[in-house]
């Protein structure tokens, strides 16, 4: 397996069970947990959301809360040294940009494989990550 060992692996997380299940296969590609980075992408708040209207919940606070939440969840799952990153914006664009920033050499992403109207209109995040990624992508099905 050593020729497959990666230095930096990125796992996008959307809080769904399938996305957490992607962590285990991703871990097989690295020697140490610290080479794993999890990313969650938040959508920006609608200007009429009461929290945005009164500016009681800024993007920085939202990021901190998600980091704390993910840290706790990962702790329960037995991962202590995984890196966590939270971004705000369009999911696929943020994932790709961040992969470039940390010079990721693999992205492991689960595919929800949307059906129906949303698939025709936009395709899935996984599809777009595969198309524009700077590095190899492993899509879990």
């Amino acid at each position, binding site marked *: 397996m050593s020729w497959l060992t990666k230095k930096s692996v990125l796992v996008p997380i959307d*809080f769904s069970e399938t996305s957490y299940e992607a962590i285990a296969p991703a871990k097989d590609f690295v020697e140490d947990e610290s080479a794993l980075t999890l990313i969650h992408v*938040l*959508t*920006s*708040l*609608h*200007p*009429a*959301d*009461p*929290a*945005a*209207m*009164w500016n*009681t*919940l800024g993007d920085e*606070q*939202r*990021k901190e*809360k*998600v980091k704390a*939440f*993910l840290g706790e969840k990962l702790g329960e799952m037995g991962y202590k040294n995984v890196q966590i990153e939270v971004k705000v914006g369009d*999911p696929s664009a943020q994932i790709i940009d961040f992969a470039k920033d940390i010079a990721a050499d693999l992205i492991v992403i689960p595919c929800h494989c*949307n059906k129906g*109207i*949303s698939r025709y*209109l*936009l395709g899935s*995040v996984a599809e777009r990550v595969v198309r524009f990624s700077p590095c190899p992508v492993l899509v879990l099905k």
Partner: protein
Amino acid sequence: MEQQLSKLKTYLKKHFWLPVLLIVLIPRIALAQEDAGSPGGFVGIFQSIVDALSYVIYFKIGGENGIPFIVLWLIAGALFFTIRMKFINVRGFKHAIEIIQGKYDDPNDEGAVSHFQAFAAALSGTVGIGNIAGVAIAIRMGGPGAAFWMTVAGFLGMSSKFAECTLGQKYRIIKPDGTVGGGPMYYLSRGLSSIGMSKVGQGLAILYAISCAIATMGAGNMFQANQAYAAVSNVLPFFDNLAWLFGIILVAIVGLVILGGIERIGSVAGILVPVMAVIYTIACVWVILVKFTDIPNAIITIITTAFNPQAVAGGTIGAIIIGFQRAVFSNEAGIGSAAIAHSAARTDESVREGIVALLEPFLDTMYICNMTAIVIVLTGVYADPGSADLDGARLSAASFETVIGWFPYVIAVAGFLFAVSTMITWSYYGQLAWAYLFGDKTVNIYKMLFLAFGFIGTVINLDLVLEFSDVVLLAMSVPNLLGCFLLSGVIARELDSYMSRLKSGAMLAELEEVRNREPVLK
């Protein structure tokens, strides 16, 4: 990216007629408003869709002169909750004001904003141009007596508003980033599943989301745009035949906020709206003071025509129907939309936010709408045969003009701001409904549709806009109130427990203790 741009360029070079066609078509649509009466073309298609919807929603109970099913449904809902909750609209009133003042705020509770902030956010969606134009429409259609029935509807509506906002709080979800997900979609699916009706709940939640996504195109969008144009073109004759230009300007401003994320415009509108509301009510008081001696007569006119209306189709029943319809259109009681904003409040007592919410129909309908109604009746413009063609915002403006000559300008500015802020808030409600159906990723498609409908609203005539807005807004009450009926036992239990703890004084003592403790870091 560059490749895509050059592709687009070559495409446009080949199809140079496309943008030209667009530019030519926009005034075409604008012209279509003039022959809205005749079927055919774009307006004709829209009219037939509206007709089909009306046929179902306005199904009349009790023969030709009976009450439409949907109005009966709303009256039944408001009456039911008023009696079932033992007149919470009366006994909760004083407590509601105490909560708004912050007496019961606990910073350690979960949620995103304070009680007052949630209330203000919900109010920005409720107080719209309907408070100026809707009342005029009610009086034009149902006579001055319709204003009386609007007040009755506002009073009873306080109870349905209490019920839905309590549920909105109780079944909300706090997401990992601290934002709150709440509203009818959540209480229908989660609430009904908690009483063992998960299939029904899911069905109603989907039905609600569909009707909400469509309804946001009407009352909170097309109607606002239409009447904002009426108010502005009333004082700026420049826009008279340029409805499409006004539409583009309005849609561009709303688009900058909801698509471009330029929140500043949104927050500026958010600050100016309460200021405008205060200026507006001061002007109402001014007119009322000027016509002081006529007040008893005006009140007598409103009450006598409420029970014995002349020249109103359907007599008293007709006036009741119009009054209830316009009141619900304005205060959203029974529609469920406000529960979305109220669910963000920071509290661990769901009843508490429900009690705050009952102030909404009071402020919106019993206070602001009544002010407009009294001004219209006092000035008597509505009864003047010379102004028979005035309706909506134009009729209100003409009424104020008789006393304060420059007031139509204020109505134009206030109407425009009300319309912008209401459109922004309703695009939020609609976006949540859309996301519930199709997921977060496609919300931009919803926003584009929303803007397109806003544009259409400015260029077609009021009757059609109103007919569409009414029918789709009222449709939301079917799944919403049905869910609230089924969950009324839960609400009543929560309310009893809350009230007994409030009366015993345990609640304030507990809050006092929390406040005196060292702040807890979260």
